[in-house]
């Protein structure tokens, strides 16, 4: 029959073994983290970005590497999913992007702080997370049936990441009720109008719901050419 002394011995042996293995694996992990996370790419700017991330408790709403709260989107791959322009625009004035939707605190970040946060999120997007986040298995991939291959060739790279955040095109995108479908936009808007709109929506229509994006002239031209051809 098991005595109290026996069970104390079992407890001690099991616990010490488990702790020993855990400490060994932890030591090995700490040695391997720099490689797996590309620590050499971790710039001073990205480190400052991490401090901004922490000192404002961004994890209190967002998740990063899947850790945090579930009130706001997961940001591990946001740098790849959206675009630098999107992140900059969003951090400048979070409430401009999705008017009437869930609000983010307006932090009034300086341009330097926004640079730092962008570097931090860029670094995060490159860390090897053993396959997380997983490729969505049931995602509907729109086939080229509705969008001809010539269209996709001319499509500026930023279009999917930025415009489809609110608009839809060829059945793809996240339709917010106030954002028009862009499939035949060329029929109703000419190049001049589109250029003025993309430069500053407010100059075309007072209190426009679409925010002004910090887009370069070249990007605007590419987008105008592409959109005006959608007839």
């Amino acid at each position, binding site marked *: 029959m*098991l005595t*109290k002394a026996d069970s104390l011995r079992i407890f001690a042996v099991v616990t010490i073994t488990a702790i020993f293995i855990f400490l060994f694996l932890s030591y090995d992990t700490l040695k391997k983290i*720099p490689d797996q996370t590309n620590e050499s790419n971790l710039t001073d700017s990205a480190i400052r970005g991490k401090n901004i991330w922490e000192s404002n408790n961004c*994890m209190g709403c967002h998740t990063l590497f899947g850790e945090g709260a579930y009130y706001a989107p997961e940001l591990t791959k946001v740098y790849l999913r959206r675009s630098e322009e999107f992140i900059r625009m969003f951090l400048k004035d979070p409430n401009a992007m999705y008017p009437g939707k869930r609000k983010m605190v307006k932090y009034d970040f300086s341009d330097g702080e926004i640079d730092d946060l962008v570097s931090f999120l860029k670094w995060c997007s490159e860390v090897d997370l053993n396959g997380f986040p997983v490729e969505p298995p049931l995602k509907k991939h729109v086939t080229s049936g509705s969008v001809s291959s010539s269209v996709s060739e001319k499509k500026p790279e930023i279009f999917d990441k930025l415009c489809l955040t609110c608009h839809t095109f060829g059945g793809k995108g996240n339709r917010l009720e106030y954002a028009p479908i862009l499939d035949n936009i060329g029929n109703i808007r000419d190049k001049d109008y589109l250029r003025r709109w993309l430069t500053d929506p407010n100059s075309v229509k007072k209190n426009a719901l679409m925010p002004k994006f910090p887009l370069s002239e070249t990007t605007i031209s590419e987008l105008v050419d592409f959109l005006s051809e959608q007839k």
Partner: protein
Amino acid sequence: MKFKSQQISYYFFATSMLLLSLQLVYGLIMAFAHLGYDVLHEIIPFNVARATHNNLLLVWLLSGFMGAAYYIIPEELDRELVSLPLAFVQLIALVVVGVTAIIGFHLNWWEGRKFLEIPRALDYLVVIDVLLFLGLLGLTILKAKKRTTTSLILYFGLFSAGLLYLPGMIDTVNQTNDSFWRWWVVHLWVEGVWELILGSMLAFLLIKLTGVDREVLEKWLYIIIGLTFLSGVLGTGHHYYWVGTPQYWLFVGGFFSALEPLAFLGITIYTFYVYNRRVIDHPNKIAIMWTIGCAVLSFFGAGFLGFVHTLPGINIYTHGTFVTAMHGHMSFWGAYAMIVLASICYIMPILTDNKFIYSSKISKYAFWASNIGICSMVVSFGLIGLLQVYLERMLDLDFFVIREELKFFFACLICAAIIFITGISSFIFVFIKCGLPKTAKFNKI
């Protein structure tokens, strides 16, 4: 009560009750924000509500553990605490640090690391406060003529919990390292050393409430905490699946966290085994209900609900979703909140010399309403989590589209929370009705 210094427990428990009621308020603020009513956004944005909700939980549980320890350790050692005034100082310091931290959160002063939001400057004060607490109890144990296994395990658990707070204070520049050390604290607390505190408090309550020989109880307590450490320590790996740490954690974490339910199942079986062999019928039925409830729901919440999403193949979909919130609510309630409430139910009538808690229908209502309430909340969280996994992780729909779909279940969550809140309010009502600790007989001596 046997010793004058045990009265300090009352004040720790009262602090716990106050913080618990505040925690509920912040929980409601968050649930309403999810439902689309974020009217308090300008004053209490979501991240403030969340940090406050979590930290209030930690502080009220710690305050409850400390209160219970200040009662249990003198009782077990059969001697007074070394200093009652210093114990009051320790309580006041704890409250001051807690209140400062919570006000700080509202002013954007924090560390912004999940569960460890308390700013660094206050971390040092926490350490000093915990050292004072451990010092007081440690000296009491050293000076005692007799020591029991239960009291030593309780002290060992509290001591290790204090020690494990330190890795959370390591500065890092790499987000992965940050996460790595954060789980040393959070995981090794709740799935490691806190279970020692749970186990020893449970053993103490069972000894008192069933009259079963402590040798039998303490023998099995060793086996249970051995299982806890075996599965819990290496089970830390389930936090290292997707944060930039090596792949072998998928295997180590998956295997050992699959064993974690066994430790909790052990606790459940142990409790029933002991209860069925009871040699006395203790009149404090309410304390027995909470004790057995704790044994059952800790297995369900921490054991079973933890297990269902711990395997890497499932966790890759559920990691970072409301499925985690489901598990979190049930396990903290079942394992830690209930053991604190069970201890309060057992200790309060002795401290206040008032048996109101035994006979009052309200204390029965408190038990059933809070448990039915939390179980319904957990079902709501589960549905929210499953729907979120399907829409977000499998279909990859837009964030706002998904949040619109989840709103109905958040309304269910709030209804369940209201039942829960009536239960907790009744508990606090009974607590207040019991009155203050009776120290008159000590004053005469």
